[in-house]
Protein backbone atom coordinates (compact mmCIF):
# COMPACT_ATOMS: atom_id res chain seq x y z
CA UNK A 1 0.00 0.00 0.00
CA UNK A 2 1.31 3.44 -0.93
CA UNK A 3 1.92 5.85 1.90
CA UNK A 4 -0.61 8.68 2.21
CA UNK A 5 1.12 12.02 2.57
CA UNK A 6 -0.50 14.80 4.58
CA UNK A 7 0.54 18.25 3.40
CA UNK A 8 2.25 20.48 5.96
CA UNK A 9 -0.12 22.87 7.76
CA UNK A 10 2.14 25.76 6.75
CA UNK A 11 1.80 24.78 3.06
CA UNK A 12 -1.98 24.57 3.37
CA UNK A 13 -2.16 27.93 5.16
CA UNK A 14 0.13 29.57 2.61
CA UNK A 15 -2.11 28.37 -0.26
CA UNK A 16 -5.27 29.56 1.50
CA UNK A 17 -3.74 32.93 2.39
CA UNK A 18 -2.58 33.51 -1.17
CA UNK A 19 -6.09 32.79 -2.49
CA UNK A 20 -7.79 34.90 0.19
CA UNK A 21 -5.50 37.89 -0.34
CA UNK A 22 -6.03 37.61 -4.11
CA UNK A 23 -9.79 37.60 -3.52
CA UNK A 24 -9.44 40.68 -1.32
CA UNK A 25 -7.37 42.45 -3.96
CA UNK A 26 -9.91 41.69 -6.68
CA UNK A 27 -12.60 43.18 -4.41
CA UNK A 28 -10.64 46.37 -3.90
CA UNK A 29 -13.59 48.60 -4.78
CA UNK A 30 -15.48 47.26 -1.76
CA UNK A 31 -12.30 47.57 0.31
CA UNK A 32 -12.07 51.27 -0.57
CA UNK A 33 -15.44 51.79 1.14
CA UNK A 34 -14.06 50.31 4.35
CA UNK A 35 -11.27 52.90 4.24
CA UNK A 36 -13.47 55.75 3.10
CA UNK A 37 -15.93 55.93 6.00
CA UNK A 38 -13.40 56.42 8.85
CA UNK A 39 -11.29 58.77 6.71
CA UNK A 40 -14.30 60.93 5.83
CA UNK A 41 -15.26 61.07 9.52
CA UNK A 42 -11.71 62.02 10.53
CA UNK A 43 -11.51 64.75 7.92
CA UNK A 44 -14.96 66.13 8.74
CA UNK A 45 -14.12 66.26 12.46
CA UNK A 46 -11.15 68.58 11.89
CA UNK A 47 -12.61 71.22 14.21
CA UNK A 48 -13.19 68.65 16.96
CA UNK A 49 -9.51 67.72 17.05
CA UNK A 50 -8.66 71.05 18.68
CA UNK A 51 -11.66 70.87 21.00
CA UNK A 52 -11.76 67.18 22.05
CA UNK A 53 -8.18 66.11 21.30
CA UNK A 54 -6.49 64.05 18.61
CA UNK A 55 -7.03 60.77 20.44
CA UNK A 56 -10.80 61.38 20.43
CA UNK A 57 -10.97 61.93 16.67
CA UNK A 58 -8.56 59.13 15.77
CA UNK A 59 -10.11 56.54 18.10
CA UNK A 60 -13.65 57.32 16.92
CA UNK A 61 -12.88 57.15 13.22
CA UNK A 62 -10.74 54.04 13.68
CA UNK A 63 -13.57 52.34 15.59
CA UNK A 64 -15.89 52.93 12.60
CA UNK A 65 -13.28 51.32 10.36
CA UNK A 66 -13.03 48.30 12.64
CA UNK A 67 -16.81 47.92 12.73
CA UNK A 68 -16.94 48.05 8.92
CA UNK A 69 -14.24 45.37 8.60
CA UNK A 70 -15.88 42.99 11.08
CA UNK A 71 -19.50 43.50 10.18
CA UNK A 72 -19.37 44.22 6.47
CA UNK A 73 -16.18 42.63 5.11
CA UNK A 74 -15.74 39.47 7.13
CA UNK A 75 -19.41 38.63 7.68
CA UNK A 76 -20.50 39.03 4.09
CA UNK A 77 -17.54 37.15 2.63
CA UNK A 78 -18.17 34.19 4.95
CA UNK A 79 -21.93 34.20 4.20
CA UNK A 80 -21.36 34.33 0.43
CA UNK A 81 -18.71 31.60 0.32
CA UNK A 82 -20.76 29.35 2.57
CA UNK A 83 -23.81 29.80 0.36
CA UNK A 84 -21.81 29.04 -2.81
CA UNK A 85 -20.37 25.84 -1.33
CA UNK A 86 -16.80 27.15 -1.43
CA UNK A 87 -16.13 26.03 2.14
CA UNK A 88 -17.47 22.55 1.46
CA UNK A 89 -15.05 22.16 -1.45
CA UNK A 90 -12.17 23.20 0.80
CA UNK A 91 -13.32 20.92 3.61
CA UNK A 92 -13.17 17.76 1.50
CA UNK A 93 -9.46 18.48 0.99
CA UNK A 94 -6.96 17.72 3.76
CA UNK A 95 -7.21 21.28 5.09
CA UNK A 96 -8.15 21.37 8.78
CA UNK A 97 -11.25 23.52 9.36
CA UNK A 98 -9.32 25.92 11.55
CA UNK A 99 -6.88 26.74 8.75
CA UNK A 100 -9.75 27.81 6.48
CA UNK A 101 -11.03 30.24 9.13
CA UNK A 102 -7.57 31.30 10.29
CA UNK A 103 -6.72 32.39 6.77
CA UNK A 104 -9.91 34.48 6.54
CA UNK A 105 -9.29 36.07 9.94
CA UNK A 106 -5.65 36.81 9.12
CA UNK A 107 -6.77 38.69 5.98
CA UNK A 108 -9.15 40.78 8.12
CA UNK A 109 -6.44 41.45 10.72
CA UNK A 110 -4.22 42.71 7.91
CA UNK A 111 -7.06 44.98 6.85
CA UNK A 112 -7.23 46.31 10.42
CA UNK A 113 -3.51 47.10 10.32
CA UNK A 114 -3.93 48.82 6.93
CA UNK A 115 -6.93 50.89 8.04
CA UNK A 116 -5.05 51.91 11.20
CA UNK A 117 -2.08 52.98 9.09
CA UNK A 118 -4.36 54.90 6.69
CA UNK A 119 -5.95 56.74 9.62
CA UNK A 120 -2.51 57.67 10.99
CA UNK A 121 -1.40 58.93 7.57
CA UNK A 122 -4.57 60.97 6.97
CA UNK A 123 -4.53 62.23 10.58
CA UNK A 124 -0.98 63.50 10.11
CA UNK A 125 -1.48 64.82 6.62
CA UNK A 126 -4.73 66.62 7.30
CA UNK A 127 -4.66 67.51 10.99
CA UNK A 128 -0.92 67.17 11.74
CA UNK A 129 -1.75 64.56 14.40
CA UNK A 130 1.30 62.73 15.69
CA UNK A 131 1.71 60.14 18.44
CA UNK A 132 4.70 58.84 20.34
CA UNK A 133 6.29 55.59 19.05
CA UNK A 134 4.70 53.78 22.04
CA UNK A 135 1.38 55.39 21.14
CA UNK A 136 1.59 54.08 17.57
CA UNK A 137 2.57 50.59 18.73
CA UNK A 138 -0.16 50.45 21.39
CA UNK A 139 -2.76 51.70 18.91
CA UNK A 140 -1.94 48.87 16.49
CA UNK A 141 -2.28 46.45 19.39
CA UNK A 142 -5.56 47.88 20.67
CA UNK A 143 -6.91 48.05 17.11
CA UNK A 144 -6.28 44.31 16.77
CA UNK A 145 -7.97 43.66 20.15
CA UNK A 146 -10.85 45.97 19.21
CA UNK A 147 -11.16 44.54 15.71
CA UNK A 148 -11.48 41.07 17.23
CA UNK A 149 -14.73 42.13 18.95
CA UNK A 150 -16.33 43.06 15.65
CA UNK A 151 -15.00 39.97 13.88
CA UNK A 152 -16.52 37.90 16.69
CA UNK A 153 -19.77 39.85 16.40
CA UNK A 154 -19.73 39.16 12.66
CA UNK A 155 -19.23 35.49 13.52
CA UNK A 156 -22.38 35.64 15.68
CA UNK A 157 -24.34 36.98 12.71
CA UNK A 158 -23.14 34.25 10.31
CA UNK A 159 -23.56 31.71 13.08
CA UNK A 160 -27.19 32.55 13.72
CA UNK A 161 -28.28 33.48 10.18
CA UNK A 162 -27.73 31.28 7.13
CA UNK A 163 -29.24 33.25 4.25
CA UNK A 164 -26.54 35.54 2.76
CA UNK A 165 -29.01 38.32 1.92
CA UNK A 166 -30.32 38.32 5.48
CA UNK A 167 -26.74 38.30 6.78
CA UNK A 168 -25.98 41.30 4.56
CA UNK A 169 -29.00 43.32 5.69
CA UNK A 170 -28.51 42.39 9.36
CA UNK A 171 -24.84 43.34 9.33
CA UNK A 172 -25.70 46.69 7.68
CA UNK A 173 -28.37 47.33 10.28
CA UNK A 174 -26.01 46.54 13.15
CA UNK A 175 -23.28 48.64 11.48
CA UNK A 176 -25.47 51.73 11.16
CA UNK A 177 -26.80 51.24 14.70
CA UNK A 178 -23.22 51.27 15.96
CA UNK A 179 -22.33 54.31 13.88
CA UNK A 180 -25.39 56.37 14.87
CA UNK A 181 -25.60 55.38 18.53
CA UNK A 182 -21.82 55.55 18.86
CA UNK A 183 -21.57 58.97 17.28
CA UNK A 184 -24.51 60.69 18.93
CA UNK A 185 -24.86 58.57 22.06
CA UNK A 186 -21.16 58.73 22.81
CA UNK A 187 -21.25 62.52 22.75
CA UNK A 188 -24.22 62.62 25.11
CA UNK A 189 -26.65 63.89 22.48
CA UNK A 190 -29.11 61.08 23.25
CA UNK A 191 -29.13 61.57 27.03
CA UNK A 192 -26.97 60.59 29.94
CA UNK A 193 -28.26 57.02 30.12
CA UNK A 194 -27.52 56.27 26.45
CA UNK A 195 -24.10 57.89 26.85
CA UNK A 196 -23.28 55.56 29.73
CA UNK A 197 -24.60 52.53 27.85
CA UNK A 198 -22.58 53.52 24.79
CA UNK A 199 -19.47 53.87 26.92
CA UNK A 200 -19.68 50.21 27.99
CA UNK A 201 -20.98 48.89 24.67
CA UNK A 202 -18.54 47.17 22.25
CA UNK A 203 -18.30 50.55 20.50
CA UNK A 204 -17.45 52.47 23.67
CA UNK A 205 -14.97 50.04 25.20
CA UNK A 206 -13.04 49.70 21.94
CA UNK A 207 -12.94 53.46 21.51
CA UNK A 208 -11.76 53.87 25.12
CA UNK A 209 -8.86 51.42 24.85
CA UNK A 210 -7.76 52.86 21.53
CA UNK A 211 -7.86 56.44 22.79
CA UNK A 212 -5.78 55.40 25.81
CA UNK A 213 -3.45 53.39 23.60
CA UNK A 214 -2.71 56.52 21.57
CA UNK A 215 -1.75 58.45 24.69
CA UNK A 216 -0.32 55.75 26.98
CA UNK A 217 0.01 58.23 29.87
CA UNK A 218 -3.78 58.57 30.00
CA UNK A 219 -4.33 54.84 30.71
CA UNK A 220 -6.49 54.57 33.87
CA UNK A 221 -8.33 51.90 35.82
CA UNK A 222 -11.38 52.62 33.64
CA UNK A 223 -9.30 51.81 30.55
CA UNK A 224 -8.22 48.50 32.07
CA UNK A 225 -11.87 47.73 32.82
CA UNK A 226 -12.77 48.66 29.23
CA UNK A 227 -10.04 46.30 27.99
CA UNK A 228 -11.39 43.46 30.16
CA UNK A 229 -14.96 44.12 28.99
CA UNK A 230 -13.72 44.16 25.36
CA UNK A 231 -12.03 40.79 25.86
CA UNK A 232 -15.21 39.53 27.54
CA UNK A 233 -17.36 40.61 24.59
CA UNK A 234 -14.94 38.93 22.18
CA UNK A 235 -15.02 35.68 24.13
CA UNK A 236 -18.82 35.59 24.45
CA UNK A 237 -19.41 36.54 20.78
CA UNK A 238 -16.79 34.05 19.56
CA UNK A 239 -18.27 31.19 21.58
CA UNK A 240 -21.83 31.93 20.37
CA UNK A 241 -20.66 32.47 16.79
CA UNK A 242 -18.46 29.38 16.55
CA UNK A 243 -20.91 27.12 18.39
CA UNK A 244 -23.78 28.00 16.05
CA UNK A 245 -21.74 28.17 12.84
CA UNK A 246 -22.61 25.72 10.06
CA UNK A 247 -20.33 25.18 7.09
CA UNK A 248 -23.22 24.91 4.67
CA UNK A 249 -26.61 26.57 4.32
CA UNK A 250 -28.65 23.35 4.07
Amino acid at each position, binding site marked *: *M*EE*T*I*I*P*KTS*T*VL*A*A*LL*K*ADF*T*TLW*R*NRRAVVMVFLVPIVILVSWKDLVAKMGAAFALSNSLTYGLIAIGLMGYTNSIAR*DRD*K*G*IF*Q*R*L*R*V*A*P*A*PNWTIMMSRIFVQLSMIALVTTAIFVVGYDYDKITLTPTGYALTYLTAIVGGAVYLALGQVIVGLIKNPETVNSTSRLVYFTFVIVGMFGGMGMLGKQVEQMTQWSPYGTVKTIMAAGMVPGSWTMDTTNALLVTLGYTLVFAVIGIKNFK*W*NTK
Partner: protein
Amino acid sequence: MDNNQSESILKVSDLCVQYGIFKAVKEVSFDVRKGEIFGLLGPNGAGKTSTLSAIEGLIEYQSGTVIVDGHNAKEKPLYARAAMGVQLQSTSFQPELKVSEILQLFAGIYGVKLTNEKLTAILKDISLEDAAGKRFGQLSGGQQQRVSLVISTIHNPRLVLLDEPTTGLDPQSRRQLWERIEAIRERGHAVVLTTHSMEEAESVCDRIGIIDHGKVITIDTPQALIEKHKNDPEVIAVSRKGRVTLEDVFIALTGKEVRA
Protein backbone atom coordinates in the same frame (compact mmCIF):
# COMPACT_ATOMS: atom_id res chain seq x y z
CA MET B 1 -11.72 -9.74 -11.54
CA ASP B 2 -7.93 -9.96 -11.41
CA ASN B 3 -5.71 -9.74 -8.34
CA ASN B 4 -5.00 -6.10 -9.05
CA GLN B 5 -8.66 -5.31 -8.43
CA SER B 6 -9.10 -7.37 -5.27
CA GLU B 7 -7.50 -4.73 -3.04
CA SER B 8 -10.21 -2.71 -1.32
CA ILE B 9 -9.63 1.07 -1.49
CA LEU B 10 -12.91 2.05 0.16
CA LYS B 11 -14.73 -0.04 2.72
CA VAL B 12 -18.02 1.22 4.13
CA SER B 13 -19.55 -0.91 6.88
CA ASP B 14 -22.94 -0.48 8.57
CA LEU B 15 -22.96 3.25 7.91
CA CYS B 16 -25.82 5.14 9.58
CA VAL B 17 -26.53 8.86 9.01
CA GLN B 18 -29.31 10.61 10.86
CA TYR B 19 -30.65 14.19 10.59
CA GLY B 20 -32.64 14.80 13.77
CA ILE B 21 -35.07 11.90 13.87
CA PHE B 22 -34.83 11.22 10.12
CA LYS B 23 -32.62 8.25 9.26
CA ALA B 24 -31.12 9.11 5.86
CA VAL B 25 -28.66 6.21 5.65
CA LYS B 26 -29.39 2.88 7.33
CA GLU B 27 -26.57 0.37 7.81
CA VAL B 28 -25.13 0.83 4.34
CA SER B 29 -22.20 -1.44 3.50
CA PHE B 30 -20.15 -1.77 0.34
CA ASP B 31 -16.58 -1.79 -0.78
CA VAL B 32 -14.80 -0.40 -3.81
CA ARG B 33 -11.72 -2.07 -5.19
CA LYS B 34 -8.60 -0.86 -6.90
CA GLY B 35 -9.15 -0.18 -10.60
CA GLU B 36 -12.92 -0.22 -10.27
CA ILE B 37 -15.66 2.27 -11.10
CA PHE B 38 -18.48 1.81 -8.63
CA GLY B 39 -21.81 3.52 -9.30
CA LEU B 40 -24.15 4.51 -6.52
CA LEU B 41 -27.66 4.76 -7.93
CA GLY B 42 -30.92 5.74 -6.32
CA PRO B 43 -33.94 8.01 -6.71
CA ASN B 44 -33.90 11.55 -5.29
CA GLY B 45 -33.58 11.49 -1.51
CA ALA B 46 -32.50 7.84 -1.46
CA GLY B 47 -29.38 8.60 0.58
CA LYS B 48 -26.68 8.70 -2.12
CA THR B 49 -25.35 12.16 -1.36
CA SER B 50 -25.62 11.57 2.41
CA THR B 51 -23.55 8.40 2.02
CA LEU B 52 -20.99 10.22 -0.10
CA SER B 53 -20.92 13.20 2.29
CA ALA B 54 -20.25 10.86 5.22
CA ILE B 55 -17.35 9.27 3.33
CA GLU B 56 -16.00 12.72 2.44
CA GLY B 57 -16.18 13.85 6.06
CA LEU B 58 -18.70 16.62 5.38
CA ILE B 59 -21.29 15.19 7.75
CA GLU B 60 -21.03 13.26 10.98
CA TYR B 61 -22.23 9.70 10.84
CA GLN B 62 -23.82 8.14 13.90
CA SER B 63 -22.41 4.64 13.52
CA GLY B 64 -20.52 2.39 11.17
CA THR B 65 -17.03 2.65 9.75
CA VAL B 66 -15.51 4.20 6.66
CA ILE B 67 -12.03 3.03 5.72
CA VAL B 68 -10.28 4.93 2.92
CA ASP B 69 -7.07 3.37 1.68
CA GLY B 70 -6.57 1.78 5.09
CA HIS B 71 -7.37 4.96 7.07
CA ASN B 72 -10.39 5.12 9.35
CA ALA B 73 -12.18 8.33 8.26
CA LYS B 74 -13.31 9.11 11.80
CA GLU B 75 -10.00 8.48 13.53
CA LYS B 76 -7.70 9.86 10.82
CA PRO B 77 -9.86 12.27 8.82
CA LEU B 78 -6.96 14.18 7.25
CA TYR B 79 -5.30 10.99 6.03
CA ALA B 80 -8.61 9.75 4.62
CA ARG B 81 -9.21 13.08 2.86
CA ALA B 82 -5.65 13.15 1.51
CA ALA B 83 -6.20 9.70 -0.01
CA MET B 84 -9.33 10.75 -1.85
CA GLY B 85 -10.25 13.27 -4.51
CA VAL B 86 -13.74 14.72 -4.49
CA GLN B 87 -15.98 16.40 -7.02
CA LEU B 88 -19.06 17.73 -5.28
CA GLN B 89 -22.51 17.95 -6.86
CA SER B 90 -22.37 21.72 -7.11
CA THR B 91 -18.76 22.75 -7.05
CA SER B 92 -17.96 26.39 -6.58
CA PHE B 93 -14.72 28.25 -6.22
CA GLN B 94 -14.05 31.85 -5.27
CA PRO B 95 -15.48 33.73 -8.27
CA GLU B 96 -12.65 36.27 -8.07
CA LEU B 97 -9.98 33.62 -8.72
CA LYS B 98 -8.72 32.65 -12.16
CA VAL B 99 -8.56 29.01 -13.27
CA SER B 100 -4.77 28.90 -12.82
CA GLU B 101 -5.10 30.38 -9.32
CA ILE B 102 -7.73 27.82 -8.35
CA LEU B 103 -5.45 25.02 -9.52
CA GLN B 104 -2.56 26.52 -7.54
CA LEU B 105 -4.75 26.84 -4.44
CA PHE B 106 -5.76 23.19 -4.47
CA ALA B 107 -2.30 22.00 -5.42
CA GLY B 108 -1.06 23.82 -2.31
CA ILE B 109 -3.77 22.36 -0.10
CA TYR B 110 -2.95 18.84 -1.32
CA GLY B 111 0.78 19.51 -0.98
CA VAL B 112 1.48 19.17 -4.70
CA LYS B 113 4.25 21.26 -6.20
CA LEU B 114 2.79 22.91 -9.28
CA THR B 115 5.34 24.47 -11.60
CA ASN B 116 4.25 26.68 -14.49
CA GLU B 117 5.15 23.89 -16.92
CA LYS B 118 3.02 21.40 -15.00
CA LEU B 119 0.15 23.87 -14.80
CA THR B 120 0.29 24.41 -18.56
CA ALA B 121 0.41 20.65 -19.15
CA ILE B 122 -2.66 20.12 -16.94
CA LEU B 123 -4.62 22.82 -18.74
CA LYS B 124 -3.54 21.44 -22.12
CA ASP B 125 -4.65 17.97 -21.08
CA ILE B 126 -8.17 19.24 -20.42
CA SER B 127 -8.10 21.44 -23.55
CA LEU B 128 -8.20 24.62 -21.52
CA GLU B 129 -4.75 26.04 -22.22
CA ASP B 130 -6.33 29.37 -23.23
CA ALA B 131 -8.50 29.53 -20.11
CA ALA B 132 -5.77 29.94 -17.47
CA GLY B 133 -6.58 33.62 -17.08
CA LYS B 134 -10.34 33.17 -17.09
CA ARG B 135 -12.46 33.12 -13.97
CA PHE B 136 -14.25 29.86 -13.16
CA GLY B 137 -17.67 31.46 -13.69
CA GLN B 138 -16.70 32.42 -17.24
CA LEU B 139 -16.27 28.77 -18.28
CA SER B 140 -18.99 26.65 -19.88
CA GLY B 141 -20.58 23.82 -17.90
CA GLY B 142 -18.39 21.21 -19.58
CA GLN B 143 -15.24 23.25 -19.01
CA GLN B 144 -16.15 23.75 -15.34
CA GLN B 145 -16.63 20.00 -14.92
CA ARG B 146 -13.23 19.34 -16.50
CA VAL B 147 -11.57 21.80 -14.14
CA SER B 148 -13.40 20.27 -11.15
CA LEU B 149 -12.34 16.78 -12.17
CA VAL B 150 -8.73 17.76 -12.68
CA ILE B 151 -8.70 19.43 -9.26
CA SER B 152 -10.13 16.31 -7.63
CA THR B 153 -7.28 14.25 -9.13
CA ILE B 154 -4.47 16.82 -8.86
CA HIS B 155 -2.82 14.85 -6.02
CA ASN B 156 -3.18 11.49 -7.77
CA PRO B 157 -5.58 10.06 -5.15
CA ARG B 158 -6.27 6.35 -4.78
CA LEU B 159 -10.00 7.02 -4.53
CA VAL B 160 -12.04 9.52 -6.52
CA LEU B 161 -15.60 10.41 -5.48
CA LEU B 162 -17.79 12.04 -8.11
CA ASP B 163 -21.26 13.24 -7.20
CA GLU B 164 -23.38 13.40 -10.36
CA PRO B 165 -20.43 14.54 -12.50
CA THR B 166 -22.25 14.66 -15.85
CA THR B 167 -25.46 16.42 -14.81
CA GLY B 168 -26.29 19.19 -17.26
CA LEU B 169 -23.63 18.29 -19.80
CA ASP B 170 -24.22 17.86 -23.53
CA PRO B 171 -23.57 14.38 -25.02
CA GLN B 172 -20.11 15.35 -26.30
CA SER B 173 -18.94 16.69 -22.96
CA ARG B 174 -20.48 13.71 -21.18
CA ARG B 175 -18.66 11.21 -23.40
CA GLN B 176 -15.42 13.10 -22.90
CA LEU B 177 -15.89 13.03 -19.13
CA TRP B 178 -16.58 9.29 -19.24
CA GLU B 179 -13.26 8.81 -21.01
CA ARG B 180 -11.53 10.82 -18.32
CA ILE B 181 -13.18 8.77 -15.59
CA GLU B 182 -12.15 5.57 -17.35
CA ALA B 183 -8.60 6.91 -17.61
CA ILE B 184 -8.58 7.27 -13.81
CA ARG B 185 -9.53 3.58 -13.57
CA GLU B 186 -6.79 2.65 -16.04
CA ARG B 187 -4.27 4.22 -13.68
CA GLY B 188 -5.41 1.72 -11.03
CA HIS B 189 -7.45 4.13 -8.95
CA ALA B 190 -10.91 3.47 -7.60
CA VAL B 191 -13.86 5.67 -8.56
CA VAL B 192 -17.24 6.05 -6.88
CA LEU B 193 -19.82 8.01 -8.79
CA THR B 194 -23.44 8.80 -8.22
CA THR B 195 -25.68 9.30 -11.19
CA HIS B 196 -29.28 9.40 -12.30
CA SER B 197 -28.29 8.27 -15.77
CA MET B 198 -28.75 4.53 -16.23
CA GLU B 199 -26.96 4.82 -19.57
CA GLU B 200 -23.97 6.24 -17.73
CA ALA B 201 -24.05 3.54 -15.07
CA GLU B 202 -24.29 0.80 -17.70
CA SER B 203 -21.54 2.28 -19.88
CA VAL B 204 -19.00 3.31 -17.28
CA CYS B 205 -19.51 1.39 -14.03
CA ASP B 206 -17.98 -1.99 -13.30
CA ARG B 207 -20.37 -2.55 -10.43
CA ILE B 208 -23.34 -0.63 -9.17
CA GLY B 209 -25.11 -0.39 -5.86
CA ILE B 210 -28.77 0.61 -5.85
CA ILE B 211 -29.75 2.50 -2.75
CA ASP B 212 -33.28 3.46 -1.70
CA HIS B 213 -34.81 4.75 1.53
CA GLY B 214 -31.29 4.82 2.97
CA LYS B 215 -30.63 1.12 2.37
CA VAL B 216 -28.60 -0.75 -0.21
CA ILE B 217 -31.03 -2.92 -2.15
CA THR B 218 -28.53 -4.68 -4.37
CA ILE B 219 -24.92 -4.60 -5.56
CA ASP B 220 -23.68 -6.25 -8.73
CA THR B 221 -22.38 -5.61 -12.23
CA PRO B 222 -24.92 -3.93 -14.53
CA GLN B 223 -25.13 -7.02 -16.74
CA ALA B 224 -25.56 -9.39 -13.80
CA LEU B 225 -28.36 -7.21 -12.42
CA ILE B 226 -30.18 -7.28 -15.75
CA GLU B 227 -29.69 -11.04 -16.02
CA LYS B 228 -30.87 -11.61 -12.46
CA HIS B 229 -34.05 -9.57 -12.79
CA LYS B 230 -34.98 -9.78 -16.49
CA ASN B 231 -37.76 -12.28 -15.86
CA ASP B 232 -39.24 -10.55 -12.81
CA PRO B 233 -42.87 -9.62 -13.55
CA GLU B 234 -42.28 -6.09 -12.18
CA VAL B 235 -39.36 -5.60 -14.55
CA ILE B 236 -41.26 -6.88 -17.58
CA ALA B 237 -44.20 -4.64 -16.64
CA VAL B 238 -42.06 -1.47 -16.75
CA SER B 239 -39.95 -2.50 -19.76
CA ARG B 240 -40.50 -0.14 -22.72
CA LYS B 241 -38.06 -1.10 -25.45
CA GLY B 242 -38.85 -4.75 -25.96
CA ARG B 243 -35.68 -5.68 -24.09
CA VAL B 244 -34.84 -5.29 -20.41
CA THR B 245 -32.52 -2.41 -19.59
CA LEU B 246 -30.81 -1.36 -16.38
CA GLU B 247 -33.37 1.43 -16.08
CA ASP B 248 -36.20 -1.13 -16.11
CA VAL B 249 -34.52 -3.06 -13.30
CA PHE B 250 -33.91 0.18 -11.39
CA ILE B 251 -37.55 1.31 -11.72
CA ALA B 252 -38.83 -2.11 -10.73
CA LEU B 253 -36.61 -2.23 -7.65
CA THR B 254 -37.20 1.33 -6.45
CA GLY B 255 -40.80 1.86 -7.55
CA LYS B 256 -42.48 4.04 -10.16
CA GLU B 257 -43.55 6.91 -7.94
CA VAL B 258 -41.79 10.24 -8.44
CA ARG B 259 -39.63 11.34 -5.47
CA ALA B 260 -39.32 14.88 -4.24
